[in-house]
């Protein structure tokens, strides 16, 4: 009788293997072909169409309860108020790649008109977004882009080039004329934004005018306060000659600011990067941080909402060159690959920081 059980086990195992080995034709990376078809909607834009009222738009940020995200989507809420649309905010508690998919599926079920998404993984959300598009839902990417053929437009907070240059410029100013060692404290190692800025930074650093700056390490704080704090601490211990920590993430710069301001490195090591004025005010006032930059995050949500409603109203389709009006922000033109650039980042210093509250 025991044999029966063993046979069953063996049968299961071999079925599993057969399931895999099935067609031994062999699908490899080479012969599977390019799958990105980039489905273009045949619809044409009507620039004179009015903004529709009652557009149901849902914001799906990378994760909820992140102060930066909260400010971002607040702009979307304000814009949908102006446009008389229905605002909704949903999202996972963790910023893992796959956790957004269930939320997209739910939004498809609820028949939203527009989904604004900050993708945790540009590819993992793609199949679901394609299903959403098939269900006539418009997709606006913001903050962190999804793969191009899975969304209609993408709100870019600033050009990648612009941010990368501005980060290197701030680092160079604060390292002083003699230059020195700098380190980057980033978010997660696969964060789309941060990685593309870091790429630009590296190109900039390779230029002769920045030859005195030496990038010694890129550390990852995973956008987690405690981890970022520990990483900042680790950087200063491993590189005693470090002059500047550049953190292109709000969580990272705040954690680095907190560590440096409470340590003996205060005044010796500069912290700069992208941060929220409210989180950084203390460190700017106590001299730890001289200058940092950021776009105004609520404007991203605001622009995303206007773009979303413009898509739902048929004013735009996401093709290059189409124009629309985004309320208080003025006129925008869609760029290559459906990108809409918000504008240049704002620099914050001890002089102007009190003018901003976010």
């Amino acid at each position, binding site marked *: *009788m*025991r044999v*029966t*059980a*063993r046979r*069953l*086990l063996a*049968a*299961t*195992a071999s*079925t*599993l*293997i057969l*399931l*895999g*080995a*099935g*067609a*031994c*034709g*062999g*699908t*490899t*990376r*080479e012969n*599977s072909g390019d*799958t990105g078809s980039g489905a273009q909607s045949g619809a044409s834009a009507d620039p004179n169409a009015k903004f529709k009222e009652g557009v149901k738009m849902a914001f799906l940020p990378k994760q*909820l*309860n992140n102060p930066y995200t909260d400010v971002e989507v607040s702009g979307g809420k304000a814009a949908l108020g102006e446009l008389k649309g229905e605002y*909704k905010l*949903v*999202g*996972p*508690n*963790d910023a*893992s*790649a*796959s956790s957004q*998919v*269930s*939320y997209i*599926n*739910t939004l*498809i*079920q*609820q*028949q939203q008109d527009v989904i604004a998404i900050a993708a945790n*993984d*540009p*590819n*993992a959300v*793609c*199949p679901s977004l394609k299903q959403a598009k098939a269900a006539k839902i418009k997709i606006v990417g913001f903050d962190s882009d999804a793969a191009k053929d899975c969304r209609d437009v993408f709100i870019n907070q600033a050009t990648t080039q612009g941010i990368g240059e501005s980060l290197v410029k701030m680092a160079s100013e604060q390292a002083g004329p003699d230059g020195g060692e700098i380190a980057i404290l980033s978010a*997660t*190692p*696969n964060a789309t934004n941060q990685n593309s800025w870091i790429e630009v930074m590296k190109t900039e650093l390779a230029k002769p005018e920045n030859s005195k700056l030496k990038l010694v390490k890129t550390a*990852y704080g995973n956008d987690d306060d405690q981890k970022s704090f520990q990483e900042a601490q680790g950087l200063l211990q491993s590189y005693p000659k470090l002059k500047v920590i550049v953190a292109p993430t709000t969580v990272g710069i705040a954690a680095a600011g907190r560590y440096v301001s409470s340590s003996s490195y205060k005044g010796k090591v500069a912290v700069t990067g992208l941060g929220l004025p409210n989180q950084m005010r203390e460190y700017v006032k106590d001299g730890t941080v001289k200058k940092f930059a950021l776009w105004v995050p609520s404007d991203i949500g605001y622009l995303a909402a206007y773009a979303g409603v413009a898509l739902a109203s048929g004013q735009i389709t996401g093709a290059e060159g189409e124009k629309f009006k985004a309320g208080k922000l003025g006129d925008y033109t869609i760029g290559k690959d459906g990108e809409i650039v918000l504008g240049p980042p704002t620099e914050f210093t001890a002089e102007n920081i009190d003018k901003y509250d976010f």
Partner: protein
Amino acid sequence: MAERSFDAKRWLGWDTAIIALTVIWLVVASLSVENFGTSRNFTFLILDLLPIAIVALPMTFIIVTGEIDLSVASTLGLSSAVMGQLWTAGLSIETIIPLCVLLGAVLGALNGFLVTGLGLPSLAVTIGTLALYRGLAFVVLGDSAVADFPENYTGWVVGTINDGAVPNVLILLVILAAVFGVLLHATPFGRSLYAIGANAQAAHFSGIRVARTKFWLYVLSGAIAGLAGVLWTLRYSSARADNGAGLELAVVAAVLLGGVSIFGGKGTLPGVLAGVLLLAALQNALRLEDVSGQALNVVTGVLLVASVLLPNIITSVRGGRQRRKLRQATTA
């Protein structure tokens, strides 16, 4: 006779209650939650619960024997990472899939060896390998993601039979569940698992090869987790080292909710499948009602605590009643 009806009551225990509760919840949600009872939502629901469900099958076996395997989600992640790396290296997907299942089996064998060969506690061992396998996953694939898997495979995993409501992967789940169900409930092997869980020593002395059985359960659990890694990767078209992080908790939660005793010796597979379905349907419905993620976690947590607490309360209440009866009988 009184004793026999008592037995029947125990047998119609927690798992039957969970199955009933699941059916009630599905009906209530279909009637009251907008968009819950649609065929598309059914597809989404099955896709969401698939990895939890298949990993829960061998997990049930292991918990029935009184052990645990917390490394399953990390095995899944490592399988996914290896899949990505091999795909990038140019191997065919038909070769990669069995290799990933095999890899899972090897990882499971290591767990099995540490638990049965060296006699270490499974909780400690698999917490260790949870960290180890996840770490290896990051060593293999680093922080990058591999996304360009062939569309006929990724499409199959998210697709439905004849584009209807029944997801393709449901067939796989039904086959696996049937095999595991027969193994557990209709073979001497299955009965030996309960014997091991109830009293490993007694089982050993009655001729059951306890260590060997447990070893193979870990191998099985690893292989299934490896397969889950493949399915996960294909579903999200994304091989990443952090895939499935935290899934082990969802699996153990579903198994316990389904009426399997954490101390071993008790529980049924239908109960576990109901537990998986109940948790998934609850989360799905609450999301459709725009309940926030935190609240979702609270609901899951409360359910889990209740599923561990209630059977214990019921048992102690029954025990108390029996003692009282006994006392009355002796004084009379």
